[in-house]
């Protein structure tokens, strides 16, 4: 049935309709090309190359002999080699201990900061974020400066205070315990952030319901509040475990001198002369699988949306009055901040400003010698700083660009199969840096590409590693932009790309800059993939620091480390100030 309406007017309108139709046909030919499909295909190809190609070569090398016929011999060798098994087990137990201690340290801290009347909560939160910014390998080196058995500053102070001779030492960082300690210092913020957020979100009326039924504060905390943040605690611990398990820098710095390997350092050792690439590829596979399982577990925990995430805030959270306990709480917070931030940073400063690590600090011993050496004498640092800067800027820009377009295509379902792009862009999160390093080496160091020894292979590595961070940031930002804002632009005559450029990008400006900064900081501190892919011509600051550690040149390390920290903090600072710098003040949408 046709619902033709007002047919009596039909004749009168016919003429104008025809005229208009001709008019609009003409307008249709003005060059308006919708690029979303070619763009989609291009991105899909780029992401496949970035993510799947190295994994393919990893699998290929681990499952073939040198002549290319399929074999399981590599895995058999892997399994029968006691040193590899041992490295794997040590890595696992190290990671689990780190997860456990991170949780034990971070949960009380998160509770104090989120649910009590302890003063200085914002300050503590931002300081914990600061230990996030510290590259873990730098933290490990700083702790080696503090707690090495002979030269460690803390041991020197201990011997000086008690008049003991050189053979006595209070701490020894070059042990399994020392390694767990140093890694925990820079992994617990993962747990802290998640748990503090969860504490923020526990609705106060749930606790009030327990109180009105007669629950004392302690009972309420134990029976109501803690169970609700339990998923966040577990999820955070899993992230810490994954970080520790896949970490290369800190174990290489602390475990190798102590005479034991973890799996990442073992893989690295297969790259030393004579290289055993097939064995490296094979040992990377279990590392990859365990990482994927752990992350899957973490997603499952958070994805259940059990209790805390649901519903969000209802009323401001109730704050427990600490009373006289606040002194104990303050001491606890101070201890954590000293151990993770204050002591290591002071150690770096002290070492940077004196000739010798064990030299007592006085006005006369202060020197800028190390700065002069690093910046003007030591030839490879200037190249490394330059390389780091180029790679940091280009990785941040390209990765943010790709992440923006992928997040757009996924969030707006702009092309069929767009969700697949999102999966590809998130996948590298489950690929440990060293595994990716092996894969990229196998994929691009061959004569076909010949990229080994160029900055390109590092750029590819960093793009792959940092893409998930940028993508997650931007994809959550897209949820804050109402699709109608974009549709309004389309219906007024703008193409998809023009809309993305003129409407969406400006609205996402804050998130874009934040994503850019994230990627930049992540890039300049990357070590685990870099260490396999770098050569003398493509040294980066992180690798130089690692090399200098092997030669024991602490003064130069301290200077470079401080440089890295200053740049990172500057970027974070600028990122936080962006709404002010960016011109128009932030406004609520219409």
């Amino acid at each position, binding site marked *: 049935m046709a*619902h*033709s309406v007002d047919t009596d007017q039909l004749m009168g309108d016919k003429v104008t*309709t025809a005229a208009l139709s001709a008019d609009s046909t003409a307008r*249709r030919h003005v060059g308006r090309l919708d690029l979303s499909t070619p763009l989609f295909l291009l991105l899909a190809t780029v992401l496949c190359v970035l993510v799947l190609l190295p994994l393919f070569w990893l699998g290929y090398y681990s499952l073939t002999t040198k002549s290319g016929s399929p074999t399981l011999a590599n895995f058999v060798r892997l399994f029968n080699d006691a040193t590899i098994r041992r490295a794997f087990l040590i890595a696992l137990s190290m990671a689990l201990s780190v997860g456990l201690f991170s949780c034990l340290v971070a949960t009380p801290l998160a509770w104090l900061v989120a649910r009590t009347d302890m003063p200085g909560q914002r300050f503590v939160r931002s300081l914990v974020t600061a230990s996030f910014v510290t590259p873990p390998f730098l933290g490990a080196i700083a702790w080696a400066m503090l707690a090495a058995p002979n030269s460690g500053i803390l041991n020197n102070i201990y011997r000086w205070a008690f008049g003991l001779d050189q053979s006595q030492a209070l701490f020894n960082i070059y042990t399994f315990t020392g390694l767990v300690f140093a890694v925990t210092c820079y992994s617990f913020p993962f747990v802290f952030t998640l748990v503090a957020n969860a504490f923020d979100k526990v609705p106060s009326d749930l606790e009030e319901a327990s109180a009105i039924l007669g629950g004392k504060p302690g009972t309420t905390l134990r029976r109501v509040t803690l169970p609700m943040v339990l998923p966040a605690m577990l999820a955070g611990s899993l992230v810490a475990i994954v970080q520790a398990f896949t970490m290369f820098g800190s174990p290489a710095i602390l475990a190798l001198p102590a005479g034991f390997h973890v799996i990442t350092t073992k893989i690295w050792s297969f790259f030393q002369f004579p290289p055993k690439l097939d064995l490296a590829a094979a040992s990377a596979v279990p590392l990859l699988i365990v990482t994927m399982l752990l992350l899957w577990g973490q997603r499952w925990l958070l994805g259940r949306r059990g209790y805390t995430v649901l519903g969000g805030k209802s009323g401001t959270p109730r704050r427990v009055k600490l009373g006289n306990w606040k002194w104990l709480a303050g001491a606890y917070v101070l201890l954590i901040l000293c151990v993770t931030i204050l002591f290591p940073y002071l150690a770096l400063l002290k070492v940077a400003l004196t000739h010798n690590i064990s030299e007592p600090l006085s006005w006369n011993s202060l020197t800028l010698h190390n700065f002069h050496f690093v910046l003007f004498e030591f030839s490879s640092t200037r190249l490394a700083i330059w390389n780091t800067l180029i790679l940091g800027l280009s990785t941040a820009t390209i990765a943010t660009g790709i992440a923006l377009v992928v997040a757009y295509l996924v969030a707006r379902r702009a092309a069929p199969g767009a969700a697949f792009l999102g999966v590809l862009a998130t996948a590298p999160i489950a690929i440990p840096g060293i595994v990716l390093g092996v894969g990229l080496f196998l994929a691009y160091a061959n004569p076909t590409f010949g990229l080994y020894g160029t900055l390109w292979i590092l750029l590819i590595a960093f793009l792959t590693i940092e893409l998930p961070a940028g993508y997650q940031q931007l994809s959550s930002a897209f949820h804050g932009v109402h699709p109608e804002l974009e549709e*309004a632009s*389309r*219906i*007024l*005559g703008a193409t998809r790309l023009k809309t993305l450029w003129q409407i969406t990008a*400006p609205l996402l400006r804050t998130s874009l800059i934040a994503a850019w900064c994230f990627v930049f900081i992540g890039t300049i501190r990357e070590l685990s993939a870099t260490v396999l892919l770098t050569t003398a011509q493509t040294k980066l600051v992180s690798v130089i620091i690692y090399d200098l550690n092997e030669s024991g040149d602490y003064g130069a390390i301290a200077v470079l480390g401080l440089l890295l920290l200053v740049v990172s903090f500057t970027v974070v600072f600028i990122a936080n100030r962006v709404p002010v710098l960016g011109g128009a003040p932030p406004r609520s949408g219409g």
Partner: protein
Amino acid sequence: MAFVELDKLTKRYGQLTVVKEVDLAIEKGKLVCLLGPSGCGKTTTLRLVAGFVQPSDGQIRVGGRVVSSPKASEPPEARNMSMIFQSYALWPHMTVFENVAYGLRLRRLGKADIQTKASRILQATKLESLAERYPGELSGGQQQRVSLARALVIEPETLLLDEPLSNLDANLREEMRFEIRRLHDEFRYTTVYVTHDQTEAMTAADVIVVMNQGNVEQAGSPEDIYERPRSEFVAQFIGGANIFKGKRVGTDTVDCGNGLVLRCGSGDYAASGQMAVSVRHHDLHLTNEKPSGDLANWTSGKVLRQVYLGSHRDYLVSLSGGETVRAIAPVNVAIPENQQVWLHCPPDRCRALAH
């Protein structure tokens, strides 16, 4: 030939068909309202016209050319349409003037041209003093007017409105209803207006299209739709009505059971089987005196509930057959609850519904 034509337009999402073979022809310069409850497919139909959604079947023609079909669809930007969104969709990072000028800039107009056109529309929508403000600094009504100005300034061939008033408070909504109609009379764009509000549709529309579950139930002038509903759904959704189910027993008589026989003044009759009769709430006359003489179009029942509303009384009456009907009576007809009442449905107020 109508200007905008929907031809067997169908949209499916998986198993779910949200728009079912909708046929509709909209004359140039008319304002057509798509009216229906939420989930009836009216917004999807509008988004199909705009080009944000591609049809699964059928096609859309504008001025004779096919703009949407399952094979190929013109993107929204090529349709020379404008749209006003439920959320207004004002860009928070642009001033009022920049928002309005955006469409003109896309058309590569000269600076002077943009300035004149934008100023003229800002004047027409009483916004000239707010041109340099940001949307976040405006009230809801002002934001609504900016969104109107932005849509009108490009002189679109077709204007689309997606529940434009649902975010305003009651007073503003009434004012903007007339404003939209006034601007339409001034500019005479072919307009498709989506709403679930009957009053909005009646105020603004030349033609109302009532939709339900993806189908067009009825299309016609506001008077047509209200006075001559053709289905139970339309009768109940527009203005509200009591529906009596029954069987046709004479040329214009329907037996609704339990002694209720209704003679109908108008409507369509089913050839055989079940049909229905609709009577508007205020067309049911109540009395507590037993009628004498011809009992056609009379029935009796018991007052379940009676509410005094100042201008009238609202009754809920349980009929002897078990159904419950609603009646609106003058204040002076005051019958207490649980009392027996007699109801009269005048034949010229009974409308037969074939389905």
